């Protein structure tokens, strides 16, 4: 595959050849870079290791963010779920704790993988590590799933956006949720078309989400939106694995997402001039942050 324009193309090719979506994405990348598949797998394995490290770092130590607005939430949730009977279930809370932890590492200048961005970097690792643990999978299989996620991400970047300044938070935390959802389906042995439905379902759930960072910092609401993204990814994957389909095909959802992004006013696209950024508390935080400076 020389160009990668639509999820449907990935699904068709994968189903025709009875391979995983990741196989097609790896071939695309190897061809694009004129290199061996082994080489790009090696590179992706490095990213995967950084993702896992970022979870461990975030859950081990409480780190205050650069702007001072967040820190320690991932660990709090982890401590809670060990001690109490959770309402939503242990596994999903663990995934959320992990996603929060990575987002906190990002906000405190720790090392992360932008996935697809810094603000949304907890969703994919949080979901994938949780599925890896649940199903007892090897790292090589996880590396494959990352290629599936990235392949879907390429389609989103082309037909919509993966930047909050361009398309709102649907383009960051939303895109990450859609990418993670498809990857989780592949990990669980679902078909390529199930992966597509899972991504479509996830994206439909976040269509229109605005980007409104308080004081312009990647902290509030960013970190906690990773909680939404990771749980949405897992739930969408389960729905698709159960055979539930997205009535609107995934590519049409992505195109709609692009249009919605274009229609978002500038105040809701990372400018910190709308949404939560101009709530009473948001404004107060921004004011005191400026004075501190």
């Amino acid at each position, binding site marked *: 595959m020389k160009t990668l324009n639509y999820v449907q193309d990935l699904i068709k090719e994968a189903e025709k050849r009875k391979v995983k979506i990741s196989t097609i994405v790896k071939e695309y990348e190897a061809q694009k870079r004129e290199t061996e598949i082994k080489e790009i797998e090696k590179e992706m394995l490095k990213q995967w290791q950084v993702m896992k490290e970022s979870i461990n770092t975030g859950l081990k130590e409480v780190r205050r963010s650069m702007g001072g607005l967040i820190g320690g939430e991932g660990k709090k949730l982890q401590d809670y779920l060990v001690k109490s009977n959770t309402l939503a279930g242990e596994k999903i809370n663990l995934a959320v704790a992990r996603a929060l932890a990575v987002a906190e590492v990002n*906000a405190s200048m720790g090392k992360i993988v*932008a996935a697809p961005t810094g603000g949304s970097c907890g969703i994919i690792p949080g979901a994938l590590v949780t599925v890896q643990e649940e199903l007892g999978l090897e790292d090589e299989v996880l590396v494959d799933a990352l290629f599936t996620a990235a392949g879907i991400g390429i389609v989103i970047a082309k037909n919509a956006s993966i930047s909050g300044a361009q398309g709102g938070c649907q383009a960051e935390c939303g895109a990450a949720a859609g990418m993670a959802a498809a990857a989780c389906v592949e990990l669980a042995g679902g078909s390529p078309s199930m992966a597509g439905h899972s991504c479509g379902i996830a994206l439909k759930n976040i269509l229109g989400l605005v980007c409104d960072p308080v004081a312009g*910092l990647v902290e509030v609401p960013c970190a906690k939106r990773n909680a939404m993204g990771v749980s949405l990814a897992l739930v969408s994957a389960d729905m698709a694995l159960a055979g539930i389909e997205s009535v609107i095909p995934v590519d049409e959802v992505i195109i709609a997402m692009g249009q919605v992004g274009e229609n978002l006013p500038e105040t809701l696209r990372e400018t910190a001039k709308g949404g939560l950024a101009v709530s009473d508390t948001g404004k107060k935080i921004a004011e005191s942050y400026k004075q501190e400076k």
Partner: protein
Amino acid sequence: MREYSVFDILGPVMVGPSSSHTAGASRLALLARSVAGGTPQEVQILLHGSFAETYQGHGSDLALLGGLLGLGPDDVAIKDAYNLAQEAGLKYTFTPINLGESYHPNTVKFIIKTANNEKITVTGASIGGGNVLITEINDFSVELKGDLPTLISNHYDVPGVIAQVSLILAQHEINIAFMRVFRKEKRKIATMVLETDELVPQSVLDEILQVEQVVDVRFVEPI
């Protein structure tokens, strides 16, 4: 439409929180350092647009200092950049500034005193996803992305200079990947930016400097 790599989507590996304000800031400073030929003695860092507003909350200040010291965007030592700058004897100031509407909202201007006491100004923007573009060196317009080895020279704009420079490169089997010439006026000083596939050694730079109309030439290593 742009053909993305999977690593444009998953990546870069970086120190947070922001690909444009942290990773991009670090790469801008790395490039400025490369233009300056190493860690400078002194630098005034002027911050324009959204850099001026949120540079501390995004750790842009740390990333910029780290880059000037040679630390990459994925080096966690960036967080300690203030101490490291002090140890290295790098003097710095940060000043928010308004460079005007024509500049990208994420622009930084470095006014540098190099290790050789040369004064250089470098202006560049963080254009998204950690990608950067140097737009001015010493008030001459350029376009420098920093992903390939790059040769930058100033010369008197008369016919034949460009041919002579490319001939010298060809004689040393250095392949030109991309070339652009920038000038303010015809037949005055022109700036040539040459991206090459190979690194350009000092001996070749010396040879280029001997071309009569060439005023200066510098080599910028890729970052």
